[in-house]
């Protein structure tokens, strides 16, 4: 008996799709509403940042690396600055470290509230989307008062920070945190008890602990399945040595667990910020640092809102770095989608995508693939352009 020919019906999500805020291509093979196969393609936002780092000096690089991503901009700059300070053997003063941690936690709150709104929008729950983004404005106003800009705060300089904390800002932050804590309790209630929302999140996309370890997931995605991975706790850096955090995990591993983990992290952030405001010591906010950084290599790891952010900096003794390599947390989490997608309905796909909190701009770095059979090719600019035009013809 001959097998009937199976026609593949592929639904593309991306590169341009209302579900995605940035371009990325996911192709789901569906049979009715059930997904039978999934494939991921990235690379649409590659901007050549790592190459551009090699022609600018360290200070200019810090500002450029801040603009790798809009929501996690401060942690990129912090990771870079911590690495360079380690190479130069300089330790920023304690008040500067505390302010860096303050900005990191405020950014974490901002990122989680933004993500929550986007996730609600993907579930079709526009009302919750509007409410969470209304509350996000409180954090953005605080950040504007503290640093001067709502996005890309630029509080870091080599050797410290450039903004200081005064009483008025401190009061505004405290009031903001109290307000947000109340609202977060309300959102926690919505996420864990609303029937329609639970129907979209409970039992969907369950990742077991073994799969998480195998795939190398990081951040809240891994913590929702019980993995104890948090750089702030495992390898404390900067101000986290003075102001420790508690790790937040959940056992279930489905979408609801990811929501709950991120909301609980918000509580931790509120507590930490209030503690910093109480206990911060007056002092200097910057130390002198030479412009020429001694030769060497350094690895710098920080905890971005999405997971572990990894920087490798190699210096050759001049004012210009030799190589900067970035590995962002979202890159580790893509594997979890294709792993889990088969068997779910098509309507669950946007929710799964948003559950790992994807940040496409952070992602597109260059990966070297060594294939045993093919020889490598070197193209110059014109050749590359010609290749691109003819590929689509």
């Amino acid at each position, binding site marked *: 008996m001959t097998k009937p020919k199976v026609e593949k019906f592929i*639904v593309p999500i991306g590169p341009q799709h*209302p*579900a995605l805020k940035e371009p990325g291509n996911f192709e789901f093979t569906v049979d009715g509403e059930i997904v039978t196969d999934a494939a991921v393609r990235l690379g649409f936002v590659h901007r050549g940042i790592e190459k551009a780092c090699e022609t600018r000096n360290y200070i200019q690089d810090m500002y450029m690396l801040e603009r790798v991503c809009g929501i996690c901009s401060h942690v990129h700059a912090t990771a870079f600055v911590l690495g360079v300070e380690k190479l130069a053997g300089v330790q920023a003063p304690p008040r500067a470290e505390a302010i860096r941690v303050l900005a990191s936690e405020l950014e974490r709150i901002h990122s989680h509230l933004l993500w929550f709104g986007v996730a609600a929008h993907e579930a079709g729950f526009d009302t919750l989307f509007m409410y969470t983004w209304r509350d996000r404005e409180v954090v953005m106003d605080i950040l504007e008062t503290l640093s001067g800009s709502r996005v890309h705060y630029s509080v870091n300089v080599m050797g410290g920070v450039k903004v200081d904390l005064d009483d008025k800002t401190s009061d505004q932050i405290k009031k903001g945190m109290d307000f947000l804590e109340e609202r977060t309790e309300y959102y926690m209630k919505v996420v864990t008890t609303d029937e329609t929302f639970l129907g979209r999140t409970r039992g969907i996309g369950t990742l077991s602990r073994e799969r998480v370890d195998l795939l190398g997931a990081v951040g809240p995605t891994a913590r929702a399945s019980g993995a104890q991975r948090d750089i702030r706790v495992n390898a404390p850096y900067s101000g986290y040595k003075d102001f420790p955090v508690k790790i937040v995990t959940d056992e279930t591993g489905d979408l609801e667990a990811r929501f709950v983990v991120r909301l609980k992290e918000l509580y931790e952030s509120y507590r930490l910020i209030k503690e910093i405001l109480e206990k911060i010591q007056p002092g200097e906010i910057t130390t002198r640092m030479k412009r020429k950084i001694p030769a060497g290599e350094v690895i710098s790891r920080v905890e971005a809102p999405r997971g572990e952010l990894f920087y490798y900096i190699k210096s050759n003794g001049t004012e210009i770095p030799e190589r900067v390599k970035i590995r962002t947390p979202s890159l580790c989490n893509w594997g979890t989608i294709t792993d889990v997608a088969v068997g779910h309905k098509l309507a669950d796909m*946007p929710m799964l995508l948003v559950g790992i909190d994807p940040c496409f701009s952070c992602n597109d770095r260059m990966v070297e693939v060594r294939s045993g059979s093919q020889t490598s090719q070197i193209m110059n600019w014109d050749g590359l352009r010609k290749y691109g035009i003819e590929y689509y013809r």
Partner: protein
Amino acid sequence: MNLSIHPLILLLIFPGGLFLLSFGLLYEWVDRKLVARFQNRVGPRWFQPLADAIKLLAKEEIIPNGVHKIMFLLLPIVAITGALTAALYVPMFGFNAAFSFEGDLIVVLYLLSLMTLCIGLAGANTLSRFTIIGATRALTQMFSYEAPFLLAMLGPAIAAGTWNIGKINAFAGENIWFILAQPIGFIVAVVGLMGKLELPPFDAPEAETEIVAGALTEYSGRGLALFHLGKNVELVIGLTLVVVFYLGGIANPLEFILKSAGLFLVVTALQSLFARLRIDQTVGLWWRLGALMALLQLLAIIFGKYLGEILR
């Protein structure tokens, strides 16, 4: 109230045709404004739906490759025609229905389903991956919501003892409001209405974040404008039907405005309250629960009528 106007004016200008279309735009504005206020936003100004319609009519209509051209162009026209024709048998704006005969309830419900059928066909006709999924979902949802809605409309019809909407209107105006006499039927009717009109939380056929725009993805320009206008007219007629049947009938324009406004508020609140249900959840929920509830209600009515007969 009764109106005696020349049938051509009745059909084209008032209360059908142009007046109905602009009333549909007004309802769309109220819907968007109320939803915005529930979400703490400002919402659009009064002429926004009109501006949208004019803008769409002014744009070029792009016909994708591989479609059946005549069907592509004809389906929006058939859809809006069905909706406008259904308005002739419903007592709009407090006046008696323009044309009425025994059994026009069934005709109206069929004409309203014509709209959903046209959307489903339009989606299947356009061979894009998103539209085919959207068409499948639209037709599936139609199957699971039409039946309970019809049963819910049947309740007052049985109580009034006639299939004529005009007579049901008069009956409802004289007796106790059916929302109190048949509460289960009212719930089934409202949920069925939201499912028919593809309002959130039942807007899986048109889920923006999953399948772009569902069955209407490839439509642009005039076709899309006609579909949107058709949907607005269906909203008006659907709300009016539920008001006539369950909220005590409409005797004059003032009652029409007040009762429709009350029902509209409830429907808009329900719109903003829930997350979107997946298509299998909507069908699974309502095919069982809704049909069961409607049947229960019918049994109660028949029983009540039987009791009434015995006691007389």
